[in-house]
């Protein structure tokens, strides 16, 4: 679809005072009008361009948030299309909910880079930027795809794969019989199909309800502090958080599990994770901690690697350095107040990362760390932003669509429609579930028909 109505977060999905949801497309005003109402639930006229209106976002007759709404009619908007922007209260959960309301009222979640693409196609962005727009689309898409798959727990993706293969097999059977009616009969198949589809619906509905809002949504940039025991990781966390969250002792190996804290750094949300020190150990509990630390680092958007500058690098450091090679990392040379045995320039050339000397104990160099993080964020080197929330919502939306399609199948079965009518909705469910896994449909059906059923003259 090229000109349907899309919606997305216009601000980053982080904890902040204000968040903006943007809806763009020919239906933008009519969609927003459906859920923007006055406090008493009356309609609010938002059809006038470039005027700010006050109202509430309603979800199922319940007011959800107090908002300001600005309509910009085509062509005077960023995308060149009718656009409605909703200024709501910041907060990942709230923005997510409002986005969901927009989707439930007929908007489609924007593809990566789609607002910019539309702005470009509508002549709102200079032609010289075409290349950049293309880059944006392809990079955001790569990112979204990775994020989408990364977020699926193995058990969920296994389930979805199982649903898909069941749907495909049933559909292929029907198709095979339609193509070769003299060899393959569908007698009695309706009740099998009904049973299969009902089973999938049941599991889908469970997935949908459990994907609901109560669950913790990942917030902000996941920043993992890593390093050898006693390098000063927990001290750093405490400085950043401003409280004694982690137990800081000078006994190496005190932090045996990972600790998480949320902080706000000049408007950027960070989830800071303190981890157990990396070292060879025989202590089972500590071993698990080390594993978790490495896992946490693998899933981080940003790694802060803390090095004790007063003792020489060893195998554990090399293990860490190799692990962070192509990751966003800031290296901190801690304990700059003590005798230095590691030289900053050497560490820089060895890790190929920015190295900042600090003293967690004396609160020295922390400002440099903070400005490095903000500059990385604003130069887009780290940007774990909207996509996580989007993918959550996107997944849920696909599950709902697939579920609706399967209900249509059951409906057609109950109406005693001929079998070829089931396939339309079965393939729709198959496609929707495929979006979650990032798989395209193309030749799946034809291949399934040939591999499972004996066809032909």
């Amino acid at each position: 679809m090229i000109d349907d109505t899309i919606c997305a977060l216009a601000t980053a999905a982080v904890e902040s005072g204000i968040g903006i949801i943007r809806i763009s497309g020919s239906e933008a005003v009519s969609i927003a009008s459906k859920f923007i109402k006055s406090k008493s639930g009356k309609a609010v006229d938002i059809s006038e361009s470039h005027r700010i209106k006050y109202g509430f976002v309603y979800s199922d007759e319940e007011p959800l948030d107090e908002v300001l709404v600005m309509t910009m009619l085509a062509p005077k908007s960023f995308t060149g299309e009718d656009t409605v922007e909703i200024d709501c209260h910041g907060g990942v959960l709230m923005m997510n909910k409002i986005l969901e309301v927009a989707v439930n009222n007929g908007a489609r979640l924007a593809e990566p880079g789609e607002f910019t693409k539309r702005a470009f196609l509508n002549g709102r962005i200079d032609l010289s930027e075409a290349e950049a727009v293309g880059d944006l689309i392809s990079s955001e898409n790569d990112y979204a795809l990775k994020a989408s798959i990364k977020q699926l727990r193995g058990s969920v993706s296994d389930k979805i794969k199982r649903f898909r293969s069941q749907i495909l097999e049933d559909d292929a059977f029907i198709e095979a019989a339609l193509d070769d009616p003299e060899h393959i009969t569908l007698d009695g198949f309706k009740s099998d199909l009904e049973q299969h589809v009902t089973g999938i619906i049941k599991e889908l509905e469970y997935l949908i309800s459990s994907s609901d809002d109560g669950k913790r949504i990942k917030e902000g940039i996941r920043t993992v502090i890593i390093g050898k025991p006693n390098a000063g990781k927990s001290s750093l966390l405490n400085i950043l958080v401003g409280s004694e969250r982690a137990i800081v002792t000078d006994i190496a190996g005190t932090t045996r599990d990972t600790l998480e804290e949320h902080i706000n750094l000049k408007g950027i949300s960070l989830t800071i994770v303190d981890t157990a020190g990396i070292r060879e150990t025989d202590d089972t509990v500590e071993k698990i901690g080390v594993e978790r630390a490495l896992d946490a680092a693998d899933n981080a958007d940003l790694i802060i690697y803390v090095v004790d500058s007063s003792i020489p690098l060893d195998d554990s450091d090399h293990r860490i350095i190799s692990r962070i090679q192509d990751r966003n990392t800031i290296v901190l040379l801690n304990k700059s107040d003590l005798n230095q045995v590691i030289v900053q320039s050497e560490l820089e050339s060895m890790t190929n990362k920015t190295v900042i000397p600090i003293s967690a104990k004396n609160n020295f160099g922390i400002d440099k760390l903070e400005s490095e993080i903000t500059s990385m964020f604003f130069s887009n080197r780290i940007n774990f932003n909207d996509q996580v929330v989007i993918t959550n919502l996107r997944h849920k939306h696909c599950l709902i669509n697939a579920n609706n399609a399967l209900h249509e199948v059951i409906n057609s079965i109950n109406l005693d429609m001929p079998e070829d009518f089931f396939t339309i909705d079965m393939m729709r469910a198959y496609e929707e579930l495929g979006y979650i896994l990032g798989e395209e449909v193309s030749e799946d059906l034809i291949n399934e028909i040939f591999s499972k059923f004996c066809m032909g003259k």
Partner: protein
Amino acid sequence: MAFVEESYDVAVVGAGHAGCEAALACARLGLETIIFTVSVDSIALMPCNPNIGGSSKGHLVRELDALGGEMGKNIDKTFIQSKMLNKSKGPAVHSLRAQADKQSYTREMRTTLENQPHLTIRQAEVSEILTEEFDIRKKKITGVKTTSGAVYHARAVVLCTGVYLNSRCLTGDLIEYTGPNGLRSATHLTDSLKNNNVRMFRFKTGTPARVDKRTLDFSKFEVQKGDVPVIPFSFSTKFESVQKEQVDCWLVYTNENTHNIIRNNIDRSPMFNGSIEGVGPRYCPSIEDKVMKFPDKNRHQIFIEPEGLYTNEMYLSGMSSSMPEDVQYEMYHSMEGFENVHIVRNAYAIEYDCIDATQLKSNLEFLNIDGLFAAGQFNGSSGYEEAAVQGLMAGINAAMKLKGREAVILDRSQAYIGVLIDDLVTKENFEPYRMMTSRSEYRLLLRQDNADIRLREIGHEIGLVSDEEYQDTCHKIDLINKEIDRLKSTYIGNSDLVNSFLSAHGSNTLSSGISLAELIKRPELDYELIKDLDKERPTLPYTVREEVNIEIKYEGYIKRQQTQVDAFKKLEYKKIPLDIDYNSISNLRLEARQKLSKIKPENVGMASRISGVSPADISVLLVYIESYKHRSEK
């Protein structure tokens, strides 16, 4: 050395089902046309199954007929049994199939060709295509040369060589270098094509044995009768003319013994011992394929079909094979009723050269050789019907080109023909391509019953459908629309009469008035059933009543599909400039760049169907096309 030299507008190479349609279309559009065949006696030959139509193939024939092709008319004249398949399923998958009298089919088509003004039939093997440089890296066709050295100048050439290019037939380890039925193969043209940088594939197909009817015990088989009344294929055929006596087909099963014979000799099958080079279709597997691939099935259905009225040869549908003669002998004898069977012709596999059809544009013209068109099995398809519709479209488009008119391209939402050609020219196809209803996304709209409504007008515009035929369709459409309007605006009340009728048909009774259309929508009712409630119903022909019923009954599904089509059309109308250099679009992924440069899709919709091109690539492409447009405007 002296040689014959003649000039034509169009030269068609091959007189099979594709070649006949191509040549007739060109000649009927007034172009001087010559058609070449290695044997005039093999015009429109049916070397494999003795039927036309079948699931989705019946749709193709109907569409071809609506556009002004010949196949539908020809089978209506020569069929000996007819059946509508899938009658218990939805209207979208109803499909007509007729058994042909093979000899009559061939003879009738030959007569039509021989009496067609502007058409010359020539028995000769074409050995070369003649081209000249036309543009940078582009050639233009100028004619063809035969093995005798004769030169035929032509402004357009349509290649419909079927399975004859470098063909060889295999029966076990016996290899014969012939076309089907021992006809000579064409051994030179492949080289000429390769010299013109045409990419070739090698495909394989097969056919079962033919046996003597007198040696079969019919008491052991289940009879398969034709339908009464018969529905004609062609929209121009008079209904009464096809109501005639029909012959029977028969059903028999293979058994464990048959399967054991095959398993015990599987190493002697060229399919399994590696002597076959070509890629076979998954759709029409040989019996040895079926037995090896589906070991759990202890029997397979075999249909016994007459090859014609004046022959005792019977075709064994479902039992093609490339086993050695002695194994075939044992295997055919192992079936019930076949104990004393006499084999007339052995089963064999055939290998042949064909092209990678992604080298073609949607009008079936080569991307890099102007004026050279291609159709049929030469394009990697399989089946008479698939061949015929391509022949028709290639012929039409060769004619359009020479007349300076716009190409006729049917899209996926207009016709199965559109699906077939789009699949061939955009998707890389590594086996003989067979039409299937599952390949059509919008099949609820592309029914065999409404092919005339969909396509007659286009056929008329092209010039292959007469004014009279076109008026018939317009009249039909008018009747349908009027009747639907009437049913939607005619209300009936909740009288006792109405309610007792409804409960007698297991339908809920009425508490208030309802339109007749709403009643027809109920699953347990239809247009014919409620006629007693419909006092003012006009007398309408069956084809109109059928359409009215379908359009009303399935309105909801049809509307949903129409919405999908509207979305599909948006990308389909976004043209891609032909001189686009994909390698210069750096943000396309490498795989997408390679595929797009190779296949050169004509619009964004086609690009989106190429495997390996992701939705993100399409977005990037859209952005690029837009900036390209602006740049070239400046």
